[in-house]
């Protein structure tokens, strides 16, 4: 079921790979959301709140703009 992707792209998938193939569940637990939400963020079907975005960046120890890019 397709949809025009949201304008905020992200590098979460590659960052997970760089961090020892971190699973979506581990990331979800670390940032306090469900695995389905991590899947939706990676697929650009959901743009997270600023708070969750910062939590994701902190898990990967990267600045926010390295994790999320505005493509609109």
């Amino acid at each position, binding site marked *: 079921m397709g*949809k025009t992707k*949201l304008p905020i792209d992200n590098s979460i998938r590659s960052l997970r790979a760089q961090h020892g193939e971190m699973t979506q569940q581990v990331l979800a637990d670390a940032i306090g*959301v*469900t*695995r389905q*939400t991590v899947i*939706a963020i990676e697929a650009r079907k959901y743009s*997270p709140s600023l708070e969750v975005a910062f939590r994701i960046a902190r898990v990967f120890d990267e600045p926010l703009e390295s994790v999320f890019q505005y493509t609109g």
Partner: protein
Amino acid sequence: MNAGFEEKSAWVQFGALVLVLGSYFLAATKMYSAGVNDIRAYVPVFSISVVLLVVTLIAGNIVAIATSKSDQADERDRMIAWRSEYLSSWVMGLGIIGAITAMVFKINTVLIAHGLLASLLLSTLLCMGLRILFYRRGV
């Protein structure tokens, strides 16, 4: 199905409402066509439908819990719930306005009651349908 509890629960509610209250409306339509104009005659059928609905929802949600990881609802779940409720609430409002209008024109109580019930059902179905859509397509 790669879905969390909230999405599975939306499917359960959608299915149970269509199945149980859909059956009730079929039965009520037959009764009304047969000339039953006393609202009290519908109460036993409706009561059975409500019990069946509750049992179906409990059973369905037990299955949804059993097949889902025990995740709490998060910000995405809350946004989807809020947006689907916001977009579906007008159906119930329309039903209430319709019922008030029907009262002004002294339309049969059976029709007013079922019109209100139908607007509640359609509003909830729209809400659950939108919830499922947002989970599948994104929000």
